[in-house]
C-alpha cells in the first residue's frame, strides 16, 4: 500500500476541481474524491490489519523514504502505525461529512472545495509523516486554507477571527519549528549527522537541559493547535466564524494535529522533559477542562457553546498525555478520535439548524424537534455524546482518561483528575440547557418550520459521523486493539528514557 496515495488523492481531486465551473460537477467530483479517500483509508486499514495478523511487529508499517534535501538530512519519510491510522480514518470520515454538508455552497464553490481538499491533504500528510520536517510542512499546508475558508466563506466577525486563528496557529507552528530545530541540531551529537527522522530521534540521548529547553516549545506549539489553556482563544472565534465544513475540519481534524503532535513529537522524543513538566501540563489541562466547561455555561451562541466545549474536551487529551501512562494515553487518543467525530457532528447539526433558521442564538430558537426531527435527533445525540453517554464514543474516551489519570498517585494529579471528573456535571448542565431550549421547549418562531428537515446529503453526513461514534461507543475494543501495540511501544520508549 503506497501511503503517498493518501496525500496524492486529495491533491489530485483539488487540482481536478480547478478545471470545473459548474457547482454540480464540482461537488460531485469533491464527493467522489472524498469517498475514494475514505475507501483508500479502509483499504489501508485492511492491509494494515493483514500485515499485523501475519505477525509482523515492526513499529511502523508501509514505510518509505525519499531524500528531499539530502544535504540537510531532510527526507520525505512516511509510514503508519495504529495511532496514525486511527487519525487518518477520523480525518477521512470528517472530510466526507464536511463535503456532504457543504453540498449547497453557492459562493465560489470551486475554490471552497479546493481548499477543503488541500486541508485534508495537509492532515493526511501530517499523520503519515515520520520526518519532522515533512510533518511541519504538512502542518503548514493544513493551516493556510483555514485562513481563507474563514476569511472568505465565514460569517460574523470573520476577518478578525480568521486573522486571529491564522496568527495564533502560525505562532504555534513557529514554536514547533524552533523545537524541531532544537532536536535536529542535537541529533548530530548522537548520530554524527543531523537528522529530522522521528524514529532515529527517538533513540537519541538528549541531555535533560536541552530537553527542558525544547520540550515547552514543541508542547506549547502543538498545544496551541490542540487548544491548550491559555492559548485556546482562537478556538471560539475561529469556530464560530467559520463555515460549517470548516468548523468541522477545524475541530475534527486540526485540533487533533495538536494532540497528535504533543504525543508523537513532544512527549515521545523528550519523555524526561515531559515527566519533568507533567505537573504543569496536568494543571493546565485540568484548568482547560473545567474552565472551558464553565465558560461554556455563559455562552449564548450555539457555535460558541460547542467551541468552548471543545476546549474543555481537548483538555482531556492533554490531561491524558500529561499523565504519561499507558491507560491515560490510550484515553487521550480515544478522546481525540471521539471528540473529532462528535464535535464535527455537533457543528454539522448546528450548521443545518443555522441554514434553516438563520440564527444561532439559543434565545431565538426553540422547539425545533417539532419541525426538524432528524436534525434535532442528531443534535441531541451529539450533545449526549459530548456529555459522555455510554454507548457513544465520548464515554469510552473520558472514562479511559479518568482511569489512567487515577493511576498517578500524587496529590496534584488526584486533584486535577477530580476536577476533570467534575466537568462531566458542568457539561451536562450546558448541554441540557442548550438542548432544552433549542430542541425541546415551546416553539420560538413558527417560521423555522418552513425550511423542512434534513436533505439526503445532510442525512448521509450525519450518518457517517454517527456510525463512527456508535462503532467506537459500542465496540471500543476494536479501536483500542488497533492502537494498543503502538502505545505500548511509546510507553516502552518513554519508560526506557525515564529509567535511564
Amino acid at each position, binding site marked *: 500500500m503506497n501511503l503517498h496515495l493518501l496525500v496524492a488523492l486529495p491533491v489530485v481531486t483539488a487540482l481536478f476541481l480547478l478545471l470545473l465551473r459548474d457547482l454540480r460537477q464540482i461537488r460531485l467530483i469533491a464527493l467522489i474524491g472524498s469517498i475514494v479517500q475514505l475507501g483508500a483509508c479502509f483499504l489501508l486499514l485492511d492491509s494494515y490489519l493483514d500485515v499485523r495478523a501475519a505477525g509482523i511487529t515492526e513499529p511502523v508499517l508501509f514505510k518509505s523514504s525519499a531524500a528531499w534535501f539530502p544535504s540537510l538530512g531532510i527526507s520525505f519519510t512516511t509510514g503508519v502505525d495504529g495511532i496514525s491510522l486511527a487519525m487518518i480514518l477520523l480525518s477521512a470520515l470528517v472530510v466526507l461529512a464536511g463535503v456532504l454538508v457543504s453540498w449547497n455552497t453557492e459562493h465560489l464553490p470551486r475554490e471552497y472545495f479546493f481548499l477543503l481538499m488541500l486541508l485534508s491533504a495537509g492532515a493526511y500528510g501530517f499523520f503519515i509523516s515520520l520526518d519532522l520536517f515533512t510533518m511541519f510542512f504538512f502542518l503548514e499546508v493544513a493551516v493556510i486554507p483555514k485562513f481563507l475558508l474563514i476569511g472568505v466563506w465565514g460569517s460574523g466577525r470573520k476577518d478578525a477571527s480568521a486573522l486571529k486563528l491564522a496568527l495564533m496557529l502560525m505562532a504555534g507552528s513557529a514554536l514547533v519549528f524552533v523545537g524541531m530545530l532544537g532536536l535536529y541540531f542535537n541529533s548530530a551529537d548522537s548520530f554524527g549527522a543531523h537528522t529530522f527522522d522521528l524514529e532515529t530521534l527517538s533513540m537519541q540521548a538528549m541531555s535533560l537541559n536541552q530537553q527542558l529547553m525544547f520540550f515547552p516549545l514543541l508542547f506549547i506549539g502543538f498545544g496551541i493547535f490542540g487548544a491548550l489553556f491559555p492559548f485556546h482563544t482562537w478556538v471560539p472565534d475561529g469556530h464560530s466564524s467559520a463555515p460549517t465544513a470548516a468548523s468541522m475540519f477545524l475541530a475534527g481534524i486540526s485540533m487533533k494535529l495538536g494532540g497528535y503532535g504533543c504525543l508523537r513529537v513532544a512527549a515521545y522524543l523528550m519523555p524526561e522533559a515531559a515527566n519533568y513538566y507533567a505537573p504543569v501540563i496536568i494543571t493546565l489541562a485540568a484548568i482547560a477542562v473545567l474552565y472551558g466547561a464553565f465558560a461554556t455555561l455563559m455562552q449564548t451562541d450555539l457555535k460558541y457553546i460547542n467551541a468552548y466545549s471543545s476546549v474543555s474536551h481537548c483538555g482531556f487529551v492533554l490531561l491524558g498525555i500529561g499523565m504519561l501512562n499507558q491507560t491515560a494515553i490510550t484515553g487521550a487518543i480515544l478522546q481525540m478520535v471521539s471528540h473529532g467525530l462528535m464535535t464535527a457532528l455537533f457543528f454539522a447539526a448546528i450548521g443545518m439548524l443555522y441554514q434553516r433558521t438563520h440564527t444561532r442564538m439559543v434565545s431565538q430558537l426553540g422547539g425545533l424537534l417539532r419541525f426538524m426531527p432528524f436534525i434535532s435527533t442528531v443534535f441531541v445525540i451529539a450533545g449526549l455524546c459530548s456529555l459522555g453517554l455510554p454507548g457513544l464514543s465520548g464515554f469510552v474516551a473520558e472514562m*479511559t482518561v479518568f*482511569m489512567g489519570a*487515577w493511576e498517578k498517585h500524587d496529590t496534584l494529579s488526584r486533584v486535577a483528575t477530580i476536577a476533570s471528573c467534575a466537568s462531566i456535571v458542568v457539561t451536562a448542565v450546558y448541554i441540557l440547557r442548550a438542548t432544552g431550549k433549542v430542541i425541546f421547549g415551546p416553539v420560538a418562531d413558527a417560521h423555522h418550520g418552513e425550511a423542512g428537515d434534513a436533505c439526503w446529503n445532510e442525512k448521509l453526513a450525519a450518518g457517517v459521523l454517527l456510525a463512527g461514534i456508535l462503532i467506537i461507543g459500542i465496540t471500543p475494543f476494536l479501536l483500542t486493539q488497533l492502537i494498543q501495540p503502538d502505545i505500548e511501544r511509546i510507553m516502552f520508549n518513554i519508560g526506557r528514557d525515564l529509567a535511564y
Partner: protein
Amino acid sequence: MPSLNNLLLILLLPFCSFLLLGLAGRKRLSPLAGILGTTSLFISALLSVHSAWTYFSSTSSHKPEVAWSMNWLQFSDSLSIDMGVLVDPISMMMLVVVTVVSFMVHLYSLGYMKGDERFTTYYAYLSLFTFSMLGLVVSVNLFQIYMFWELVGVSSFLLIGFYYDKPSAVSASKKAFIVTRFADLGFLIGILILGHGAETLDFNTLIARLTDPSSPWLGALSAGSFLGASALTWGLLLVFMGGAGKSAMFPLHIWLPDAMEGPTPVSALIHAATMVVAGVYLVARLFPVFAIACPVALDVVLWTGIISSVFAALIACAQTDIKRVLAYSTMSQIGYMMFALGLSGYGGEAGLGYTASLFHLFTHAFFKALLFLGAGAVIHMVHSNEIKDMGGLRKRMPVTHLAFLIGCLAIAGIPPFAGFFSKEEILTAAYAANPVIYWIALITAGLTAFYMFRLYYLIFWSRESGVSNAHPVDEHHGEGTISMKLPLLLLSVGAVIAGLVPFGNYVSSDGTPLHIHLHIGDAVLPVLIALTGIGIATYFYKTESSKPAKLMQSMRVFYMTLHNKFYIDEIYLFITKNIVFPLIGRPAAWFDKFVIDGTVIAIGRTTDRIAETVRVMQTGRVQDYALFFIASLITLAVFAIYLFH
C-alpha cells in the same frame, strides 16, 4: 442455573424493540409500535419469571455466578470493563421486578398514550429504559453498572421530558439529569478509588478482595487517611452518593417530585418501581464490602435513609398534587429500604435488614406501580394533577378505586397486604439494631398511612357531587380501556400476595437461606399506628369539611414549610443561580473574553501600533531614502573600519 440464552434474550428483546421503533421513525410503525413493544416485554417478563423460578428452585445456597461475560474495554492489565450477566438472588429478583412492572406499564400505556403523535417514540424510549435497567441489574462489573446507570439516567431524561413542548417538563428532565449526574460524579470517583485500590472492577473479585481482612488490597485502602476517613470509606461513600442521587435520598432528592412531569405510566415505571431503587440495589450489590470492611459508610447509609424517610413523609402530608404525594411517598419508602440496609449486618440473623430491605423493594414495586397507574387513570379522566379538581370519584371509577385502595392499604402496612410483611421485617430488624431508628420508623409508618389515606379520601370521597367545574370529566373515556384496567387488576393481585413469598429463603446477605419468623406481638404496635394514621385521615378528609383548613390555620408556619418542601429547592436554586452561575461561570467567561483573549488581542494591537510608528519612516520621498541609505552606509563604514578593525 437458568439458561444463558434466556437471560440474554431478556436483555436483547427490549433492546431490539428500541432499535426497531427508534429507527422506524414516528409514522411508519405507529399503530403497531405499542403492540410490538408490549409483546417483546411480555416475552421478556415470562422468561424472567421462568429464569427466576429455575434459579430459586434449583439450589438452596446462592452464591453470585457470572453466567456470561466478555472483555469490552481493557484499561490496563488488571482493570477492564467487562460486559456480562451476573446471576445471583438479587439480580434474578430485580429481573422479575423490572420486566413485570415494565410489562404492566407497556400494557397500560397502550390505552393511556393512545393517539399521542409520538406514540412510537414513546415506546422506543420505554424499551430503551427497560433495556438499560436490565443491563444495570445483571452487571458483573463496577463500570458496567455505571454505564447502564448513565443510560438509565438518559432514558429517564428522555421520558420525563417526553412532553417536550411543556417548559416545565423540559426543566424537570434537565433537573433530574443534572442532579443525578452530580451524584454520578461521586459514583465515578468512588469507582476510581475502589477500582484502583482493589485493582479490579469485577464485582466478585472486588468483594472477595475487600472483605478478606488479610488481603493486601484492603490493607492498602484502609491505611491512608484523608480528611479523617480512609480511602475505602471515601470510595464507598462516593459510590453511595451515586446511589443516593438515583434513589432520591436527602439532600439529592429534589429531582424526583419534579420528574412527575413525565407521562404517568413513566412515573410508575421509573420513579416507583425501577430506577429509583437502583441506589438500593447498588448498596445491596456491594453490601459485603459495606458491612464487613467499612461499617462507618454503612452508618451513613443508615442515617441518610432514615432522614429521607421521615423528611419525605412529612412533606407528603402537605402536597396537593397527587403525583407529588406519591413521589414523596416513594422517597420515603426508599429511605426505608436504605436504612434497613444500613442497620443490617452481614450473614445469619444479623442480615435480616438486608433481606427485609430487598423484600420491601420487591413488594413496594408492586403496590407503588399500582398506585401510580391508578393515579394515572384518575388523571386521565380528570385532566389534572391537582387534588382540588378531584373528589367523589369512587362511583365513576370502581376498578381504579378498588385498586387504589388496595395500594393504600399495602403501603400503609395493613395485614395481609404485601407492604405489611416487608415493613414488619424492616421494623423487626430496626428494633433489634437501634431503638431510635425503630421509633422514627414507626412515626414514619404512621405518617405514611395518614398521607396515603388523605390522598385516597380526597380523590375518591370528599365531595359527593363529583368533580369541579373547571375540569369537566371526559365522559366517553370512562375509566379507560381494558389495557388500562388489566394492569391495575394484575398489580392489585401482586400487591395482595407479594408479601406471602418466603423471601428470606431466597435472598439473604450471605447467600444462605434465612428463616424469618414474624411474631404477632411485634406487629401489633406498627399496625395500630398505621390504623391511627388512617383514622386521622378519615376524620379530616372523608367528607368535605372545614376541618383540614382549620388544622392548616393552626399550624400555618409548619404547614407552609412542609408545603414548600422545607425550601430545599429554593436553597439549590440559590446556590446555582446566585453562586455557580454568577460567581464561577460568568467570571470564567469574562476572564476568557477579556483577560486571555484580551492578551492575544493586545499583542496584535501592539504589533499594529509598532508598525504604525515605524511606517512613518516610509515617506515615499526618494531623498529621504537616500539619506537613510547614506547615513547607514557611513555608520556601517565607521563601525567596520574603526570598531571591528
